[in-house]
């Protein structure tokens, strides 16, 4: 039994040594992630590097819909799209707070969808950026406030924090560096515009709190907040009603293209798939967003 205990101690010592080395090397590599346009590399840019006058937040529906270069060309304001596939309000809040540590945007465009305020993406958002735990203050604070005790315990391990990181890190280092604005165009064309209705909708307390905190942060910092619901053929009517009420209650501007009857309805040529616009559709929606941004910035 004594021999086994010694063996266990040796194994533990090796694992702890690997954990420390992995943490040191991992942090060095993470903080020098090149700008290559992959999701994780863009998350690094959004959380640590980029500065912009117009900040776009949201999920894949933001990432594939709002074109920062168009906004810059039309308004003269720098813009950055920080949308991340499958991420909710909690991620949007972390990015906003991270931005505020570097600069103060004039306008925040928040693209909202049902999954962002339900528990569907609650864990994805943290799981995909957990490698920045301890490096990014807003993320660390979020985990301390809302993370489960299991997650907090596991994040003491560098190995756990860096879980799956090597794959995207290697990929990011093999791709050519380029200036990215976070927008990722899609060029598909949907054949049919049949609407899919979803009835299930139940908000998640944490996601709603994060949404409230985004609104409060914008108000506190005198940032104009525009909440959008981009066109989609996947309709959750209950969510749209909830958003309408919530934004009305919080006195936030909401532009709901989910109920659009004029620009996008029955126009399959604007859709890449049932929930995302293609580049053509994205240009039309971005031009409309530009009008709203202009109205807001002129009134300032």
């Amino acid at each position, binding site marked *: 039994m004594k021999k086994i205990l010694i063996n266990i101690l040796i194994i533990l010592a090796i694992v702890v040594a690997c954990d420390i080395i992995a943490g040191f090397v991992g942090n060095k590599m993470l903080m020098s992630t090149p700008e290559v346009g992959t999701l994780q590399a863009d998350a690094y840019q959004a959380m640590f590097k980029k500065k912009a006058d117009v900040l776009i937040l949201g999920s894949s529906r933001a990432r594939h819909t709002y074109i920062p270069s168009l906004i810059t060309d039309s308004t003269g304001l720098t813009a950055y799209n920080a949308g991340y596939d499958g991420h909710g309000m909690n991620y949007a809040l972390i990015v906003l707070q991270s931005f505020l540590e570097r600069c103060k945007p004039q306008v925040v465009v928040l693209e909202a969808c049902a999954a962002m305020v339900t528990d569907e993406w609650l864990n994805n958002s943290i799981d995909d950026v957990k490698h920045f735990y301890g490096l990014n203050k807003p993320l660390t604070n979020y985990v301390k406030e809302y993370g489960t005790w299991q997650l907090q315990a596991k994040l003491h391990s560098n190995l756990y924090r860096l879980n*799956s990181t090597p794959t995207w890190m290697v990929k990011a280092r093999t791709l050519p560096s380029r200036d990215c604005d976070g927008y990722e165009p899609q060029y598909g064309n949907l054949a049919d515009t049949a609407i899919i209705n979803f009835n299930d909708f139940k908000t998640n307390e944490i996601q709603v709190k994060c949404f409230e905190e985004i609104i409060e942060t914008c108000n506190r910092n005198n940032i104009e907040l525009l909440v959008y619901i981009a066109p989609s053929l996947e309709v959750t009517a209950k969510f749209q009603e909830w958003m309408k009420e919530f934004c009305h209650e919080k006195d936030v501007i909401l532009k709901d293209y989910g109920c659009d009857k004029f620009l996008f309805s029955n126009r399959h040529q604007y859709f890449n798939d049932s929930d995302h616009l293609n580049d053509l559709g994205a240009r039309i929606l971005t031009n409309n967003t530009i009008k709203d941004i202009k109205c807001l910035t002129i009134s300032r």
Partner: protein
Amino acid sequence: MLINSIGFWIFFVVVFLVYYLIRNHRWQNAWLAITSLVFYGYVSLKLLALFVVIIAIFYGLALGVEKKSKNSPSIVKWLKVTGVCAGIGVLIYFKYLNFFISEFSSLLTSIGFTVNTGTLNIIAPLGISYFTFKLISYIVDVANGKIQAEHDAVKFTAYVAFFPTLMSGPIDRATTFLPQLEKARKLLPSNLSDGSLRILWGFFMKACIADRIAPYTDAIFNNMSHHNASSIALASVLYLIQMYTDFAGYSHMAIGVGRLLGLTVTENFKQPFFAVNGGDFWRRWHMSLSFWLRDYIYIPMGGSRCSKLRSYFNVMVTFIACGAWHGANWTYIIFGAHHGLWVIASRIMKVPREKLEAKYESLKHYTWFKSLRIAISFVVCCIGAMYFRANSISDIIVAWRKWLSSDWGMPYLQATVPLFTFGFLSFLVMIYKEHQDEYHGKAHFMYSSSRAMRLACIAMTIVFIILTGALESNSFIYVQF
């Protein structure tokens, strides 16, 4: 509370510590029975009472069988039939009744009757397929005089409800498990190290291979009509690997937990990817189920000690039962029939193969000939895996239509970087280990004779799992059965 969750391990540590503080085997059994029932109640409190009632019925039936075995063989026979029917009845009610109702309803609809039967709101008890098979084999073995009925209700409960194997097997036999509960279990260093290594290897298979593959196979099989033939073929290959690593991973962990408690749990897998034909495959794959089916369905039907045609019929019935055991869906029946046909084909091919080997003696020794047989077996298993994973028969038709058409192109490879890097690397490690186990015995990696090598391998496996494994999984394929 799955075996790979933090909750399970906290629970296990408590069980483990108290278990070894108790020196008396009766109290150890009582502790096992209580904690197993607590475990069951935690996962499914509503059905705990039903579970206890089922255990009590079989306990009583076995005592009745034993009491009447000397003077009333006909009553013994009736009690045995009652036990078997009760086990099957429970299975049918909880797993298949809704399926029968809906199939009957659609049959009536197809011949012109308008019916609206609806379905019953039935929740199947956790691990029903596993514990009913344990109980059926127990009552049959008692009636056949293979074992004596267990008089100690606590010990019997500890056997049936043994928590590591409750959710997903292996299906332990009373003949091998109950005798282990007759003496006190001591904490032995060999059990501690063997058990821990099995658990670690199980984690590796589950987190680094099965859960890396799952997102890909889910993407393809949940949307089959949108993918081309090569994507479906790749997904079928990957699903076979996922099925194996998921289930074998669970089995390793369950066996490891059993070993830590000083108990030997039945082995469930023995390098199935090195099988050379259908029969060989089923002697290596889900062994606790396949041997159960052999002993309690195939052999009682006459086995192979009858005409060839009759034995083929027996094989088909056994394998269709094997498919049906997995669940109420025609896809499982097709899976069973596919494997049944393969076993029959392997038997038919045995004579010409042996003639060929006799004619060309060297063929027996050629690695390529064996490799060819292994490769053919692997392809047949991949097709079986597709049947198993397909959501419906129409999906199976879609797959075959695509395979037989010219819809072959580049497979879908999006969002698969971790699968084709870490997952593939882990798979190679696993295949290397299995190859060594198959042909050279256990003397590698974590079992190396060199202490330094052994400890380094164990530590590196832990590091590799934490760094590259898919750690947030909350399901096992075979828990649903």
